[in-house]
């Protein structure tokens, strides 16, 4: 589930898709995860997500600076003392290998957590990645979730807004993408850019135009521009409870299955 522009209804559609498919679902919008608020679910477990960085043994360290020379992110600084900015470490481990005196040992640097929920209606799991507020390593947490989620190949992934490298990472990991948009100039502009990324990642996809009745003119423009099947979803009063919306999501998922086949 992906969508370029924020607020087009991607997470609402993801909630419908979860209820229709009953698959394990992962919220990859790790700086602002909120899919758990769209589903009736109960938290069952929490686990910390850490990168592995260096810890120094001051008795062994001679301040030779080899570790700082291989640290491309500037997290390790060696001058008159040995210093680490844990917020800059990307966990590559090069410093640990570079130390000629074995003065560095691995230590955990927490970047966030994964909350595991059980969804009452489906009995299926929802995994929600939550980056610590202010941490800049969202892409690492997305990577962690992509690498550590079981239950493949039946997996529903809700991507963050945007079309950057995190979204590309997710698209590279999936077999098909349901793209949600809206008939507005901003959403169409974002859709175009997202579709470029989807084409580079070579992912079969279909497009769901949410709240298509907002504008017939812009809905037609989306349909004209997009080269894959599209579905129109109406504006409804209660999006999560709407049978009409659910039926459109079901049709779009069936269409996506055909595209991917």
């Amino acid at each position, binding site marked *: 589930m992906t969508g*370029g*522009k*924020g*607020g*087009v209804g991607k*997470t609402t559609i993801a909630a419908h898709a979860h209820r229709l498919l009953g698959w394990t679902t992962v919220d990859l*919008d790790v*700086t*602002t995860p*909120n899919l758990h*608020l*769209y589903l009736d679910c109960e938290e069952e477990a929490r686990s910390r997500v850490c990168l592995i960085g260096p810890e120094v043994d001051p008795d062994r360290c001679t301040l030779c600076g080899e570790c700082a020379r*291989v640290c*491309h*992110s500037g997290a390790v600084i060696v001058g008159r003392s040995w210093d680490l900015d844990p917020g800059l470490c*990307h*966990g*590559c*481990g*090069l410093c640990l290998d570079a130390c000629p005196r074995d003065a560095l040992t691995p230590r955990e640097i927490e970047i966030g957590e994964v909350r595991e929920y059980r969804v009452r209606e489906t009995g299926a799991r929802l995994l929600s990645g939550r*980056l610590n*507020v*202010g941490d*800049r390593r*969202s*892409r*690492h947490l997305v*990577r962690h979730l992509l690498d550590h989620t079981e239950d493949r190949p039946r997996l529903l992934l809700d991507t*963050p*807004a*945007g*079309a*950057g*490298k995190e*979204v*590309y*990472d997710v698209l*590279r990991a999936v077999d098909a993408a349901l793209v949600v948009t809206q008939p*507005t*100039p*901003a959403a*169409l*502009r*974002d859709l175009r*850019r*997202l579709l*470029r*990324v989807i084409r*580079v*990642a070579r992912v079969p996809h279909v497009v769901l135009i949410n709240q298509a009745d*907002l*504008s017939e*003119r*812009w809905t037609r423009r989306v349909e004209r521009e997009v080269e894959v099947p599209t579905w129109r979803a109406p504006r409804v009063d209660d999006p999560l409870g709407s049978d009409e919306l659910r039926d459109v999501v079901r049709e779009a998922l069936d269409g996506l299955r055909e595209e991917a086949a």
Partner: protein
Amino acid sequence: MRIAVLGGKGGVGKTVLSIALASELGAVLVDADVTEPDTPAYLNLERERDVTEVRARYAVRTDGCAGCERCLEVCPWRAVDDPIACDGCGACAIACPEDAIELRETELGRIAESREPELGLRVVHPETEPWAPELADIVHRMIPEDEDCVIDCPAGLGCPVIAALSAADAAVLVTSPDPAALHDYRRAEALTREFGLPAVRVLNRAGSDEREGFDVVIPEDERVLRAALDRDPGGLVHALREPARRVAELLPDGG
């Protein structure tokens, strides 16, 4: 004064309020949504100049490669030979025992400055490939040095938002009343607090009963949607003039 407009959730009205606020203050509008910049979809921009080029490095294996794959072990994205995923950090080049990684450079676009003639608004906006790396650096390069500006942040609370907050003197926090938006908004509030910035809290598209804890409440207004669909910047700013003025009054020194 530099003002960051953020909210966490997408679609709560950050961009339209940023446009109205920049117009009200006579400040430069900075579009910090590097992967999906939307200001050109709301405005009729006339390009004035290129501020700077955006270049990026990416790693490729050369003939000296012995196939040990040490490069891929140290890369969290396994992005060697994939310029779209590669963030150019160079860890693979440091790790390669054969010195067989080459970091190539490519141009991914530019930062442009444009004018919106009807509003008399100056806009700095990115025109790069969506996969441009080092988004925080791009945001920093878009923020003018000695001028007032309004920084329209992307959805989420990632690198570009943190970059905007680290450069800002004040924040405008925007949400709509639904539970998901309020959840994200509280995280945005916590992040803004970490930077110790004064903040004006805006509830957009409010119904009749919700307003507690907000400095400015903007009722649902069909005119905003219509102006967005018609690409009518004048209509957009007109519809949001009153709330933008109230936000400006609440900013330190009136913005």
